[in-house]
Structure formats: C-alpha cells, structure tokens
C-alpha cells in the first residue's frame, strides 16, 4: 500500500480543476456541477466552493445517483440507492460537469450519462475526476483530471475524503 496523493496534493488538484473548468467554459453562470455519490458528491461540493469564490457568484451543485442505471447490478449484492438532488437551476441547456473520484472502466460514467438523459438535456456534458487510473472499457475520457495514476489491473485505488473517511488521501493497494 502506498500513498499516491496526500491531503495537500488533493487540495491542489481540486483547485486546479476548479480553475480549468472556469477557463474552459466562457459563461460561468451556465455551469452546473453534479457529483456522483458518495465521494464524487463531496468533491463536487468542494469544487463548487472553489469555483464560487473564484467566479464571485454561486455555482449550482447537486448530486446524481446512477445505481439504477448500472449494468453490473447483477454482479454483486444489491446496493442502496443514494439520493439524487438537482439544483433549482435545473440542467436544461446548461454546461454540466459530472464529477467523480476515480475514472476506471468508464461504466459508471456511462450510467451517469443515461441517468442524465432522463432529467434533461444539457448544452454540454463534461467530466471531471480526481484520479484517472486507466483501463477504460468504453470510449469515455475525462475533460479535467486531478492526477493520472498509471496502475495495474490487479491494484486498487482508494480515495479517502475527510467528509466520509476522516482523512484526505489517495492510496494504491496491491490485491
């Protein structure tokens, strides 16, 4: 087990992502952030706070549960559904940024895109992740990446966040 990112690393990565999102989108009042529970939702809140202070106005943020759209439900025991909360602004015509902790096979994001399709039709959908560990199984890439972490398929990447785990760190575990 090794530490890939420390707390200051994570904080720096999120700050950089916040800047990059604002730079990539010309009208910041059109941006909506949606985090994928559990940890993606907390990252979204942190990024939204960063962006709000940078932009000088509140960036709407919510969370999007993708459980019911997963294609791997039958491969494990049933998992609880997480709350979905869409900001009052809605997502129609907005520049929407999905936020998750780790980008791996891409299947979670595919489920996220399906789930989005039932809520509305954003102008653009972009993807921000804290870690991109590779091994994609679908044609999906992230627009904003905190850190590219080359891993073997046998390794696992654990993101711990203060809000859930009491500590900010990213670990690589051999299994």
């Amino acid at each position, binding site marked *: 087990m090794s530490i890939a990112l420390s707390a200051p690393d994570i904080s720096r990565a999120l700050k950089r992502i916040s800047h990059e999102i604002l730079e990539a989108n010309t009208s910041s009042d059109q941006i909506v952030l949606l985090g994928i529970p559990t940890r993606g939702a907390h990252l979204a809140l942190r990024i939204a706070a960063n962006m709000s202070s940078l932009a000088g106005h509140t960036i709407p943020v919510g969370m999007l549960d993708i459980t019911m759209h997963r294609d791997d*439900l*039958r491969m*494990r*025991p*049933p998992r*609880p*559904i997480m*709350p979905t909360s869409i900001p009052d602004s809605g997502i129609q015509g907005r520049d929407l940024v999905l936020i998750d902790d780790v980008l791996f096979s891409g299947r979670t994001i595919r489920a996220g895109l*399906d789930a989005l399709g039932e809520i509305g039709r954003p102008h653009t959908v972009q993807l921000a992740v804290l870690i991109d560990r590779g091994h994609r199984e679908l044609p999906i890439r992230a627009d904003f990446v905190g850190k590219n972490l080359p891993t073997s398929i046998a390794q696992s990447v654990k993101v711990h966040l203060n809000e859930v785990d009491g500590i900010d760190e990213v670990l690589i575990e051999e299994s």
Partner: protein
Amino acid sequence: MRHLLSISDLTKVQALSILDTATELARVSDGAVKKLPTLRGRTIVNLFVEDSTRTRISFEAAAKRLSADVINFSAKGSSLSKGESLKDTALTLQAMGADAVVIRHGASGAPQRLADSDWMRGSVINAGDGTHEHPSQALLDAFTIRKHCVKGGNDLVGVRVAIVGDILHSRVARSNVLLLNLLGASVTLVAPPTLLPVGVESWPVKISYDLDKVIGSVDVVMMLRVQQERMNDLFFPNAREYSRYFGLNADRLRLMSHNSIVMHPGPMNRGLEIAAEVADSARSVIVEQVANGVSVRMAILYVLLAGGPLEAGVK
C-alpha cells in the same frame, strides 16, 4: 433477502432501506422520469389466484417502470381455476424462466409453500395470502405514515396508530402490526371481540372495543374493509350496528386530533366502515396510499431482484 413472504422476514434496517429506496424512487413515479432500465431482461410473473385488480396493477406498474418484463397470470379463465395445482403452476412458471413471482392467493401460506418448495427457483413476493399477511401493503402504509407523521427521524417511533375493524380476517392488519411495531410505532387494535383472533393477547398491541375512546389520541386511523361474506357469520348483528360502533363517520372525524390522518387499504365500503365524507376529507390519504404503493413496490422489486446471484440457501 430472496423472498418477501412476511414482514417477520425483515429486520428494521431492511424495512427502512425499502422505505428509503422508495423515497428515492418516488421521484421516478411522480417526476418526469417514467422508466428506469434497472430490471431490463428480468421476468416478473403476477400470479393472482385471487382477484385483486388494484394490487396487480400496482405491482405491474412498478415492474414496468423498472423495465422488467411482466406476465400476468390470473385465476379467472386460467388453468388454476380449473383445478391445476399450485405445484404444476409453479413448475410452469419455472419453465418460463420467471425471476420473480408476485403471488396473491386465497390460502394463507401459499407464497411460503412456493418459496420453500423446490418447484421453482425465483423470488417469491407475497401480494396477500388468505388471512395471513400483505407485506407490500404494510410497507406502503408505513411509507405514507412516515411522510405525514414523522418530523426528522426515519423510523416511526412515537407515532400512534389505531387499526380498526375486522382484525381476525385481515392480512393487512397482521402485516401492519408487525411492521409498525418493528419501526417503533404504538398500535391499538379496535374491533368487536368477535373480530379479534384468539391469541391476539400475545401481539405487541393495545386492544380496545371502543373506537370513540381511541380516536382522539392517535395520529393515524387505519380503517379495514368489512368483507361482505362476514355479514352473515354471527360476527356482529348487522351492518348498521357495525357501522354505528366501528364506522368512521363525520362525527368521529371531528374527534380526531390535529394533523392526524385517515387510511384505508381499499377497496372501501363507503357508508359501512367509512363514510363518504370521511374518505373524501382533507385528513384522508387513501388516494396517496395508492400512489405510494407503486414506489414501495418498485423498491421491493429493486431490493429483491436488482442484486447479483446470492449464495445458495440464503433467504
């Protein structure tokens, strides 16, 4: 969890997780989203050996909103009404590849017979068996009560519920007693002594023969349907007298406490156990119960069917 046969199969955590899941899924039922892909490719059979259009439709809507394939197998005109045995029916359903059977049956315990037999492998969901249980109804009732009567907290601690009417023959009452007790509510059964089962003393409830004494001090009044066939079986002198002592009429409605609600599992006998003006009053959540039924049944299907294969022998 593989089957839902009785509320006694559930832990408090499992029951709450069904209610929480239903809360999330309610968005699907009343929002813009009409359909989720979750159970795509799964086959659910509605085996209604006893007629109940409303329960069947509710399960059907729930299954379809989760994209499952639904096969309706009703008693009327089917081989079951021609004396085919439950066993043969189950073997047929197995051959059809049913992942789950939602069964309504006039015989208490029929769902458990299906589940315990080796006649079929799918999940069995009890949609009402004889005078035994109706767990999905109890879950939707608890869901409805939680929405109206609970501020903060996710269980029903502190909620006072009166269940009124034919307890003896009511599967709704049996499931509700178990679930309400599991979730921390206090329950009072109100009925003439003839319509309370021998053995009710061991239930975790209070018993009253006097609706007027109870009605002012509860948050929920749950009325039970009086079955037509009980009328001539010496349980009470006649419908008029039953209605006078155990019916919920406008006078009794006025005795109810502030913010309390009226529930009924349907179908109602207006004018017998419940007066029309009560059923249609602002306190009545009877129509909402129906809507909540779909969300709760979606949650049940999700919990039982969405997950992967379980280890053999795990219930």
